């Protein structure tokens, strides 16, 4: 089974020196701006998404403080509207997905035995666009111009007539801008997982985390265009007087909702799916066995990613569509609980049949199961049209989706942070601090959100900046507010734990947990080229499998060392058969320049500086042309020949 040492490299000293020369980056401002290394980009995703999480969390604390007692005056209605909109928009778009993309960026190449992502420059572009689009949206808050219509921005409330000012222009342009990053990242994950897997890693040997990331990538590719079209039409309606959502001119208000939720419900799974993949990656190390029912978990991942596109109308059960139409979506919404349940039972069986090692990552996984199942339970209730119509727009809905998203995404992310911190930073975390953090987060989460079920059923509507005492919601709201501060304290302890590990943690061995995937066969932190010898995979658990480990040591073959250049192996999609070595790009300023040009374009559009926008669009076109211009190098050098 596991060891705590990476296999002795099967590459010679000369090979290692050449690999270092081709892949290594000297620390400098230039290297910081031009890097295309998936590990550095992944770390940036994690840190930047963490910063946006902090901003959205502070917004939530301000809102909970306002709601702690009736008729409080800490926030004005206008400020409250901007805060809850930025909270939701940030948590969904700028925290959850990018944080999980960060995990994917760091881990997918390591887990599949590759030296980088398939398109490293596109990867760098994705990060810069994510950063700039987040800043673009948050920069509006100090000017009182932040989005203020809720994260799903329903028309007609978000049109120019009912919501003048820049607020919803920031929303629509910001999300269009961010969509470039999310789309680029998804394409990169899909191609990387399909084409750069180590030889021998056929589809039945792919780690569940990678399956989850690929499924997420496909969901983004199919779901995001609906949101992009929606936002483009909203911006055109608001700025240029088109009538896509204006019923008096032949438009349709429900068109917004349909397009938004065609994206929006798959997006729940876009957020949760990689997090479930983290759970499947963490469990083997702390149960000392593989996840029970691997094929069924793959089935669950694949079927959820498909069925999630057929449930969107359950967000619209109160809009007056024909009941037969509802029933088609109600059926899908009910059945999607089966694959979700399969995963839950697979994890429970894994824990039951394995030997539990109760460390902090496993605590967070257990916390995830408890919380996510409760969220799933209320989710199944929403699949029933009659119940859904009773609680629509009440705090019951707020309770449900926080159970799903904190339970289904934040708990696994925290498990993932503690699990891979040694791999990413090369340092071990403090176990005691981690346990305190877990209990504070777990208790704080439930104290905050469980009462919302109750006062939602008692009739408290969501998105109100205050309420009157006569309604009888005061006590429950106070409990929620106290819980939110406990939750914030727990999350602060997580941050303290990470900083403590980086500064004072003891050095981490390559495989501190006895993990089963290839990431644990590399150094902690991994070398810039990841693997001195690319592995030859012979089982689902290559790090527990002697021949797979041996393939990186004494079983190394020259065609898997590839030290003469910045190269990695391309393999076939289904069976992981070796095709040829491919050349990977060098660090470049092009991603940063392109992202800056896009930032200029969207800012100019927002401020109606159209000539500047035209200039920025031209810069984008020129940068793309330079980027895509074929290199003047012989075929053998660019990896075209075998």
């Amino acid at each position, binding site marked *: 089974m596991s060891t705590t040492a990476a296999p002795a490299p099967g590459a010679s000293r000369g090979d290692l020196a050449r690999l270092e020369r081709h892949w290594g980056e000297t620390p400098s401002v230039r290297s910081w701006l031009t890097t295309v290394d998936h590990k550095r980009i992944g770390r940036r995703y994690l840190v930047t998404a963490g910063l946006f999480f902090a901003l959205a969390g502070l917004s939530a604390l301000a809102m909970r403080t306002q709601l702690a007692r009736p008729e409080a005056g800490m926030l004005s209605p206008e400020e409250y509207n901007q805060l809850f909109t930025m909270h939701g928009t940030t948590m969904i778009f700028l925290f959850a997905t990018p944080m999980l993309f960060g995990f994917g960026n760091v881990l997918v190449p390591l887990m599949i035995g590759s030296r980088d992502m398939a398109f490293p420059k596109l990867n760098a572009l994705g990060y810069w666009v994510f950063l700039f689009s987040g800043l673009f949206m948050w920069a509006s808050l100090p000017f009182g111009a932040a989005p203020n219509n809720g994260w799903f921005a329903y028309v007609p409330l978000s049109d120019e007539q009912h919501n003048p000012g820049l607020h919803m222009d920031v929303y629509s342009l910001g999300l269009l801008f961010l969509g470039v990053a999310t789309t680029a990242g998804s394409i990169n994950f899909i191609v990387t997982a399909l084409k750069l897997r180590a030889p021998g890693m*056929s589809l*039945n040997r792919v780690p569940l985390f990678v399956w989850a990331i690929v499924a997420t990538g496909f969901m983004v590719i199919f779901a995001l265009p609906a949101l992009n079209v929606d936002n483009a039409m909203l911006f055109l309606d608001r700025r240029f007087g088109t009538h896509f959502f204006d019923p008096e001119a032949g438009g349709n208000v429900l068109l917004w909702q349909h397009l938004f939720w065609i994206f929006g419900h798959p997006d729940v799974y876009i957020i949760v799916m990689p997090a479930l993949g983290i759970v499947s990656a963490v469990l083997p190390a702390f149960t000392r066995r593989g996840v029970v029912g691997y094929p069924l978990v793959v089935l669950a991942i694949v079927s959820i990613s498909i*069925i999630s596109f057929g449930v969107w109308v359950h967000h619209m059960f109160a809009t007056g569509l*024909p009941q*037969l*139409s509802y*029933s088609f979506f*109600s059926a*899908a919404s009910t059945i999607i609980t089966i694959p979700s349940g399969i995963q839950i039972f697979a994890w429970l069986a894994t824990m039951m049949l394995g030997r539990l090692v109760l460390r902090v990552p496993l605590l967070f996984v257990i916390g995830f199961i408890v919380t996510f199942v409760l969220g799933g339970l209320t989710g199944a209730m929403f699949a029933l049209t009659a119940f859904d119509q009773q609680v629509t727009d009440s705090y019951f809905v707020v309770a449900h989706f926080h159970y799903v998203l904190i339970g289904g995404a934040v708990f696994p992310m925290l498990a993932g942070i503690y699990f891979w911190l040694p791999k990413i930073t090369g340092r071990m975390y403090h176990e005691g601090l981690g346990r305190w953090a877990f209990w504070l987060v777990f208790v704080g989460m439930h104290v905050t959100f469980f009462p919302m079920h109750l006062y939602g059923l008692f009739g408290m509507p969501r998105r109100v900046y205050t309420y009157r005492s006569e309604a009888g919601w005061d006590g429950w709201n106070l409990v929620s507010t106290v819980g939110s501060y406990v939750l914030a304290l727990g999350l602060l302890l997580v941050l303290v734990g990470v900083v403590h590990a980086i500064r004072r943690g003891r050095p981490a061995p390559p495989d501190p947990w006895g993990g089963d995937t290839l990431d644990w066969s590399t150094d902690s932190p991994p070398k810039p080229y990841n693997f001195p010898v690319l592995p030859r995979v012979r089982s689902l658990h290559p790090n527990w499998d002697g021949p797979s480990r041996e393939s990186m040591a004494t079983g190394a073959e020259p065609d898997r060392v590839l030290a003469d250049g910045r190269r990695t192996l391309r393999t076939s999609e289904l069976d992981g058969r070796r095709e040829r070595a491919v050349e990977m790009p060098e660090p470049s300023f092009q991603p940063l320049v392109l992202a800056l040009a896009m930032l200029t374009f969207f800012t100019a559009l927002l401020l109606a500086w159209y000539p500047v926008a035209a200039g920025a669009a031209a810069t984008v076109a020129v940068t793309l042309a330079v980027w895509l211009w074929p290199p003047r190098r012989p075929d053998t050098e660019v990896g075209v020949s075998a």
Partner: protein
Amino acid sequence: MSTHPDPRARLAGGLLFWYAVLGGAIAWALHLLTGWGIDELACAAGSEAVGPVPLRTALSATVVLPALATVGALLAATLLWRRTTHVVTDGEDRPVGRSRLLALVGIWSNLLFLTIIVLGGIALLVLPPCQR
């Protein structure tokens, strides 16, 4: 016996393989889009018919045809599963393992999609198409 079937047989085998794995998903997607679309558009237009065809009959077709296609995919996936059960993997690069995985995924996912389509069909028996 030849180990390399002719290109036409390979193409047919490949198509049958992917029909077994994804047939139910595609059939369900067609069921959802056509069933919902026809119901929504006809009722919004105030009509209980699609051209000369009564609305309920048209909707029945959007249930029955995809259900039959899904049953076909289920049978194909089961056949694939049975055929890969006793294959000896003499060479480690033979794609039997991943074929069995995808066959199993096909069997269970086709069952899920068939269930969703059948539930939609039951709703069609119970609810008038344009009741709001």
